């Protein structure tokens, strides 16, 4: 992390801290508060772009700067701005709105900080900065459902911190240091006893990081939390926070734990199969659109695990990075469209979506593009991500895993296409008109996300070059 990028992060956090205070001091109206937040995001984005080449490296034992983290910073920053806009538009009737937007901005700066972590300590602090304010984000509306989902999310997150510290203790007892490169050297020269301890520590760390990614034995909180929370907050939790946690997991597994050897491939492959199957099969039975998206986020975590299981191949890192980058755009965009549907039209289930394309064709088109990208249909970014992931699985000698992944993608296409069919091929049956026409700006913003999805499905060069440059830095 350079000084410039860190100053961008500080700008975001201070913006989230100071804008509510300034709004209360000068009695600004809500539109001015939104303008101030957009100004904060713009200056932070300019600082991030400026920090690409120049800037003095800052604490190189804690943070690193490479191409993948810079790329994902831009994705997370842009999607965060769109989510902020939608939260503002759909929570307008709430008082003290500037404070909850400030909490969101602070949490987003924590999400960006996790992309640069090179050390277990800084990863812990950045993950906690991302998740502790997000416990309050779920309570943007205060009723029994959001309280229940906040309680479940809190216990899972707190237990994840405990397991993280346990795994960290075991790794520390072998390696003596917390940096990923030092752990790498210590594990390469460890004796057989050390490797057995490392196995226990790895299981504990996998449990902790698996809570954040909602991988199979730890996915039980995910559908309840993503459905109970307000859907724009679920866009942040299920879309941005998951992908922002996936990048340091690449660093942990590939740089610190040397997954290029075949030791852990079978365990991760089995977890990937279970996660994908559970997510896809349970999504087929749901009627609530938000719940369908919540289960499909579990399935996408399974696809990510396919990339981790295929670690012996050189394409695996590219697949994981592409999946993480595409997933931010797709899942956040899909949940944001669901937010707009719930807030402006009162649409919650699949039957209520019938004939929506005749009511609001632009929103239906944006939703269709995002759903097709989630399903993995060309020419979208989701398709390219799945191509790289399954190719990596075949290269690593696990063709059965790629076959099961393709089967699961076929299952997923079923429920995505069902939603699209309901929107386009049916007649609308009493969909109420929206109260005002202020849905145009958020729909246009999410339309930008969908356009980026198509763009990165055709123009694969920047993400592939960034991840290839990152792969060369890893000790293969």
């Amino acid at each position: 992390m350079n000084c410039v990028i860190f100053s961008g992060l500080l700008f975001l956090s201070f913006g989230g801290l100071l804008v509510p205070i300034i709004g209360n001091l000068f009695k600004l109206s809500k539109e001015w508060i939104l303008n101030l937040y957009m100004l904060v995001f713009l200056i932070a984005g300019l600082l991030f772009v400026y920090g690409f080449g120049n800037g003095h490296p800052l604490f190189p034992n804690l943070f690193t700067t490479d191409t993948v983290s810079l790329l994902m910073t831009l994705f997370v920053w842009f999607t965060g701005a769109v989510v902020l806009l939608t939260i503002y538009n759909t929570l307008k009737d709430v008082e003290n709105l500037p404070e909850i937007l400030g909490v969101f901005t602070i949490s987003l700066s924590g999400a960006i900080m996790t992309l640069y972590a090179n050390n277990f300590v800084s990863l812990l602090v950045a993950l906690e900065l991302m998740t502790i304010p997000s416990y309050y984000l779920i309570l943007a509306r205060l009723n029994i459902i959001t309280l229940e989902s906040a309680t479940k999310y809190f216990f899972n997150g707190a237990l994840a911190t405990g397991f993280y510290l346990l795994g960290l203790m075991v790794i520390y007892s072998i390696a003596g240091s917390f940096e990923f490169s030092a752990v790498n050297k210590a594990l390469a020269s460890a004796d057989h006893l050390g490797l057995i301890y490392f196995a226990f520590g790895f299981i504990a760390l996998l449990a902790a990081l698996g809570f954040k990614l909602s991988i199979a034995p730890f996915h039980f909180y995910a559908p309840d939390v993503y459905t109970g929370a307000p859907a724009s907050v679920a866009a942040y939790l299920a879309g941005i926070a998951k992908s922002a946690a996936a990048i340091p997991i690449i660093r942990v597994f590939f740089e610190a734990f040397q997954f290029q050897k075949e030791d852990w491939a079978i365990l991760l492959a089995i977890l990937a199969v279970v996660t994908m199957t559970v997510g896809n099969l349970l999504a087929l039975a749901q009627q609530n659109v938000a719940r369908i998206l919540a289960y499909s986020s579990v399935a996408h975590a399974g696809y990510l695990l396919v990339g981790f299981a295929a670690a012996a191949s050189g394409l695996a890192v590219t697949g994981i990075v592409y999946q993480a980058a595409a997933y931010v755009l797709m899942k956040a965009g899909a949940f944001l469209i669901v937010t707009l549907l719930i807030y402006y039209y009162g649409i919650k289930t699949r039957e209520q979506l019938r004939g929506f394309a005749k009511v609001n064709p632009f929103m239906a088109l944006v939703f269709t593009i995002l759903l097709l990208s989630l399903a993995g249909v060309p020419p979208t970014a989701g398709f390219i991500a799945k191509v790289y992931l399954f190719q990596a699985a075949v290269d690593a000698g696990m063709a059965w895993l790629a076959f099961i992944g393709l089967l699961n993608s076929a299952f997923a296409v079923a429920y995505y296409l069902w939603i699209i069919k309901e929107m386009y091929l049916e007649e609308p049956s009493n969909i109420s008109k929206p109260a005002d026409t202020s849905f145009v700006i958020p729909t246009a913003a999410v339309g930008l996300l969908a356009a980026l999805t198509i763009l990165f499905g055709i123009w694969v060069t920047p993400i592939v070059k960034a991840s290839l440059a990152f792969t060369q830095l890893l000790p293969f």
Partner: protein
Amino acid sequence: MNFQFSHEPMFWFLLVTFSLVAIGIYGLLARKSILKMIISVEIVVNGANVGLAAFATQHGADGVIIAFFAIALAALEVAVGLTLLIVLARKYGITFPEKLNNLKW
């Protein structure tokens, strides 16, 4: 007053770590009430902290510093948990986790 043990085996500290983690996981699985589940999470984190500080005597000062950060972060997390508990108790009178079953499966 020198309490430092310079020749004890590490066995005792590791025993404390693992038994506290076991008791904390028992508390989380037994689900007596939300307050006791929060206390169980604190017991788990404290157990892991003792383990980290114990290994810091072998490898240097890094473990002590991460123990500091872990103490601070766990204290912040328990503040959030207690806020949730107080809002649940004052507004809805719920203190047991079985009463939270409004989300359909």
